[in-house]
């Protein structure tokens, strides 16, 4: 990752991305957020920190990840598809970049305990991994519904030495796990860092998480220039909370000719109400410490989200995405479960790569926009797709979806 300052004018010093972002938190957390903000700013200007982070990313996480030209998939989609292979990172997703950055900061702040929320368990596993590496106590909050459907990841976290706490309040899914982690943090803020898993939450989390994962786009931009001699026509990523998308978008934001597409989880279809598309199907509100697009009713009560992808199954989105949407710099479109699973299958069969179902939304999105882009450009478009994670964790879900599991 480069030490260059982040491009653009956002967020402001108080964490506002236009009308979004900010801090909507109990006063009890403000001192800890200020401490974190100061530590993060100091670290980003500290050569030692950046060198340590770079070394970890290279030697431990296995980055830079490859930019792979998926020729057989491309032929079926009608675009030249370049896959940013974040699925090959240690722990199987882009998330390792964020947890390594935050774990390093935790050490620098002198804290000895990390807590995290997790939906599918990927961020929980990544946090437990970093906690093992840095010798930190680790507690992961996970909705009880998710601990049941992701039993393998629960076992992984425990193997790595973490305590997994099933959350039995509310809808017993990711948003409730996040509530419970916030409650833990309010009570234990003195020795505990809340290692938020996405570019959401109160300032400075959205900006800080973005900066820890922005290497994805910096690498991809350089790799695409090396490979094709030009910038891509479009960059595509899936958007739940939105860290993988911001990670790959950020370096391209100043490149006006590069279209940025974020694909939200359309679930059973945005029209059915059973989806997780906060930007396409939600409205501006306050959730989990930030102002952003939220799935909510007229009274501001959060509406439960739905997606076949546990990692996208969240009723909010990072505030920078809300801002990129409002400014028109990025385009957000829903991809429903069926289209995502069709793209999942296509990548398996054409490239021998099993993607995370989250990332399959980006693949399906690229497939959907390819004909339009080709028509607009009058040639085959070049699309960089963030393959943000691998599908090992999804084998059971996908097997059941395709009806290929033997009867037990």
């Amino acid at each position, binding site marked *: 990752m480069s030490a260059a300052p982040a491009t653009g004018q956002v967020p402001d010093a*108080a964490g506002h991305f236009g009308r979004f972002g*900010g*801090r*909507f*938190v*109990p*006063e*009890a957390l*403000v*001192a*800890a957020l200020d401490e974190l903000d100061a530590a993060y700013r100091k670290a980003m200007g500290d050569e030692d920190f950046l060198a340590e982070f770079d070394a970890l990313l290279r030697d431990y996480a296995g980055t830079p990840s490859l930019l792979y030209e998926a020729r057989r998939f491309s032929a079926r989609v009608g675009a030249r598809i370049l896959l940013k292979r974040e699925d090959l990172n240690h722990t199987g997703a882009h998330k390792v970049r964020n947890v390594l950055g935050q774990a390093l900061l935790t050490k620098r702040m002198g804290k000895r305990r990390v807590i995290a929320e997790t939906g599918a368990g990927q961020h929980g596993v990544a946090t437990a991994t970093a906690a093992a590496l840095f010798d930190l106590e680790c507690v992961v909050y996970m909705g009880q519904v998710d601990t049941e459907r992701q039993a393998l990841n629960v076992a992984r976290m425990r193997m790595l030495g973490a305590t997994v706490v099933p959350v039995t*309040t*509310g809808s017993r899914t990711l*948003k*409730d796990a996040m*509530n419970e982690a*916030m*409650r833990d943090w*309010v*009570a*234990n*803020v*003195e020795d505990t860092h809340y290692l938020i898993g996405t570019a959401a939450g109160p300032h400075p989390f959205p900006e800080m998480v973005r900066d820890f994962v922005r290497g994805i786009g910096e690498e991809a931009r350089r790799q695409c220039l090396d490979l094709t001699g030009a910038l891509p026509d479009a960059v595509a990523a899936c958007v739940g909370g939105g860290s993988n998308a911001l990670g790959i978008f950020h370096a391209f934001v100043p490149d006006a000719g590069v279209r940025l597409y974020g694909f939200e989880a359309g679930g059973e279809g945005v029209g059915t109400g059973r989806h997780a598309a906060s930007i396409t199907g939600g409205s501006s*509100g*306050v*959730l*989990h*410490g930030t102002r952003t697009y*939220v799935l*909510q009713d*007229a*009274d*501001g*009560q*959060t509406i439960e989200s739905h997606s076949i992808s546990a990692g996208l199954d969240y009723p909010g989105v990072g505030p920078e995405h809300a801002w990129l949407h409002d400014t028109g710099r990025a385009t957000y479109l829903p991809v429903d479960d069926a289209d995502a699973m069709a793209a999942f299958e296509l990548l398996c069969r054409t490239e021998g790569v099993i993607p995370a179902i989250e990332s399959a939304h980006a693949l399906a999105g690229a497939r959907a926009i390819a004909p339009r882009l080709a028509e607009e450009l009058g040639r085959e478009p070049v699309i960089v797709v963030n393959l943000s994670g691998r599908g090992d964790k999804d084998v059971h879900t996908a097997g059941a979806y395709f009806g290929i599991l033997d009867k037990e």
Partner: protein
Amino acid sequence: MSRIGVAFDKARADGRAVLVGCMPAGFPTVEGSIAAMKAMVEAGVDVIEVEIPYSDPVMDGPVIQKASDIALAGGVRVADALRVVEAVAATGASVVTMTYWNPIEQYGVDAFARDMAAAGGTGLITPDLIPDEAAEWLAASDAHGLDRTFLVSPSSTDARLRMTVEHCRGFVYATAIMGVTGARAQTSEAAPVLVSRLREVTDIPVGVGLGVGTGAQAATVAGYADAVIVGSALVRCVLDAPDQAAGLTALRKLSAELADGVRNPAR
């Protein structure tokens, strides 16, 4: 001018602290919550804190979470909470509303302030709105003459204590412990320190809440604070009761015990 000031003036004239009792609107039903709040007033609670149930209450512990869930499952709306405020204010008690910010933002900040004032409410306690983000609420509360209670915490710096109390009107809410709502066996050692730090920067009345649930604890807190705020212990009376009558009986008993506590402060 502060709307809730009358409650503090009256208690001060009696030489005692104000007793604030919290109950979620619509728990277990809208009518049931009104009956519970009226029982609290009759048994000696000075100020009723009407909590608007919210789907993601990050400052609340298990008891109030459960009560909020029950209220929401029963279909309670923000408009119902205003109806509760109106019914309880009609008894002559002071009523303050405690609410997470998103329901107010969706109702419309100015519209809510207008309707809250019309219902006879005194103002809002905002657990997840800090003055830094409150420009719209500052304007709306000024326009409609409502009080503003922001929270301060043992972790707040002196600069933030000063900044926060400058934006409060009516009283400031000092959270006694680092944590969420819920009765605790021990009273806080951090609370008296926080209150004395506040005394150095403000004359505004100080209410202390979080973890207060017995008459003895109320007496302890009344020894150094201007208001004693009790939530979960009161909510539990209703939550644990086999029927409404038993719930109201338990609520009256605890309210009377707490009212006795604030009248016999431990100095």
